[in-house]
């Protein structure tokens, strides 16, 4: 029921099919399972045709933004005389998200294949897989897979005997959430501090090493292989709700739930059944209180909202949140919301790259104020101050880390205001405080 549990019959396993299958990690095992057939097919096609199939399939970026992948690939102009680069964003650091980790530790060759397909499609000879430094096990398996693929001639200067050059390199990060932001990742890859860059220029014009670059999430690249093999229509049909969201999506589930793990369902799957049936519902004697459905950067959902949600890009927006990275954090009635939100703010304060004032100061002040409310030291004005700071932090910075910190604060105060007020009032009627007054 989602790795590490047995698969649930209502899952649709395309990407997660071989999670837990140690043999799939090796080149031989991967080939036995149909691996590298998609790459072989791709190398015999025109890059533009690959881009069109991916466009037609409706595949959208699985890292968080949901940008149409085929369209992104089509921004790379062939024959412009410049070297092109593909970056695979494997810096998965969004709290609540651990799907790419499973992809890399169980099916590393799927990612090598996806990178090679992507690189060829955008006219790049080199793909870099940027993996966060903490992922020692995925790093190990990815390096093994890349080495095996080089030795077998699958990648390299004559990829699968096609005469085309496709290099894939693993690059290890060194601990920075912000390097999951695409332009920060490129800076980091170049050997700089991981500060996000001002856009434009967009990566397709001037990306890593100043050259046209496409950057895709692990899951997105892996999905390109079955799409090429089975066709755009096959992928498009996997859709239970809005036709703008197609295919399957990995959801990593964590927090106060019976069966945390990585689940793969078709876009549009009912969230209520997902939480209670697939994930097994709340822990014994507890009740769900809230859900953060796409990593801590998306708005918190109440259970009413969550239970009415259909799990796709549009479905989460319709119910006051976003699909984000698919990192579902389930919070039950034993957790004080202020504590949860204060911890999220602390995360962002720690991870701010400190380039922009609004973010550097805003994340720190937000944390301080939330922690004093949590500790019963808050005042009534604090809530307005928090909302004011959040407004100043939104839409005013180079990247969206600042906005991401504001999001759980604003949605938390809006949807769980009573918990904030109870803590603040506890202070007001505190016997010691009353005696001093």
């Amino acid at each position, binding site marked *: 029921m989602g790795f590490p549990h047995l698969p649930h019959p209502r899952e649709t396993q395309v990407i997660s099919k071989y999670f837990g299958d140690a043999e799939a990690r090796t080149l031989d095992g991967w080939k036995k399972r149909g691996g590298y057939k998609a790459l072989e097919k791709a190398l015999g096609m025109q890059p533009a045709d690959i881009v069109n199939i991916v466009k037609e399939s409706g595949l959208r970026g699985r890292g968080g933004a949901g940008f149409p992948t085929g369209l992104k690939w089509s921004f790379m102009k062939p024959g412009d005389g410049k070297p092109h680069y593909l970056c695979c964003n494997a810096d998965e650091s969004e709290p609540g998200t651990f799907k790419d980790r499973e992809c890399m530790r169980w099916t590393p060759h799927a990612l090598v294949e996806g990178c090679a397909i992507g690189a060829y499609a955008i006219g790049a000879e080199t793909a870099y897989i940027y993996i966060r*430094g903490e992922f020692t096990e995925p790093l190990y398996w990815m390096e093994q897979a890349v080495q095996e693929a080089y030795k077998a001639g699958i990648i390299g200067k004559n990829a699968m005997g096609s005469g085309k050059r496709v290099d894939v*390199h693993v*690059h290890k*990060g060194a601990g920075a959430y912000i390097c999951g932001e695409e332009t920060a990742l490129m800076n980091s890859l170049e050997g700089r501090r991981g500060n996000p860059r001002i856009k434009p220029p967009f990566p397709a014009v001037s990306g890593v090493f100043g050259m046209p670059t496409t950057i895709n999430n692990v899951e997105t690249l892996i999905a390109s292989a079955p799409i090429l093999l089975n066709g755009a229509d096959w992928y498009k049909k996997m859709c239970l709700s809005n036709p703008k969201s197609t295919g399957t999506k990995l959801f990593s589930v964590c927090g106060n739930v019976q069966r945390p793990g990585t689940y793969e369902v078709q876009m549009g799957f009912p969230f209520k059944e997902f939480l209670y049936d697939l994930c097994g519902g709340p822990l014994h004697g507890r009740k769900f209180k809230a859900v953060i459905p796409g990593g801590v950067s998306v708005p918190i959902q109440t259970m009413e909202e969550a239970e009415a949600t259909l799990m796709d890009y549009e479905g989460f927006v319709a119910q006051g949140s976003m699909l984000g990275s698919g990192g579902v*954090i389930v919070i039950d009635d034993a957790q004080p919301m202020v504590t949860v939100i204060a911890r999220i703010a602390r995360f962002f304060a720690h991870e701010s790259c400190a380039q922009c004032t609004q973010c550097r100061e805003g994340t720190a002040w937000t944390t301080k104020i939330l922690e004093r409310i949590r500790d019963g030291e808050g005042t009534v004005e604090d809530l307005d101050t928090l909302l004011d700071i959040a407004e100043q932090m939104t839409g005013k910075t180079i990247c969206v880390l600042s906005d991401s910190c504001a999001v759980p604060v604003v949605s938390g105060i809006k949807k769980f205001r009573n918990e904030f007020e109870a803590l603040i009032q506890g202070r007001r009627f505190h016997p010691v405080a009353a005696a001093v007054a």
Partner: protein
Amino acid sequence: MNPPELVGGLESPDYASHDSAGHAPYAPVFTGEVKRELDELVKRYPQKMAALLPALWIVQRERGWVPEEGMVEVAEQLELTPAYVKGVVTFYTMYHQHPVGKYFIQVCTTSPCGICGAEDVVKAFLRHTNTGELGVTSPDGKFTVIEVECLGACGFATPIMINEKFIESVTPDRVPDILAELA
């Protein structure tokens, strides 16, 4: 009236002094086999500077941390200035800028693990390692415990890392056994 006391001091930590305080003199890392390893890495990128993060990882692998002499060496290898290299080192949390215990223990306490009891795991490590405090190395030089932001294994709360080793689903009662295995 006395001037207000400065909290924290203005001097930056003198990392070089760690060496005079009992550490062996710095021996160059990039010689022989390791130098060849770096040369191979540089070939992967169109610019030499891109090998900076990998080069720093090598220094940390060989020396256990990244001393200033190591930064100078990396700068020479990649034709950068030592100040530039230090600027990059200080941005990333995983490069140790001073020596740490033989076992560097990182416990994830970010929200998803936080709501599953990560704080208690931290407390258990602090107690059983005799470090008592986050970031402090135990008197025997064996352990340093820190809290880390999201290790990306939220479904296996609480994940920890001991040096390069990743351990999932750690609970406070597993801590003594985990530590016993290290000894």
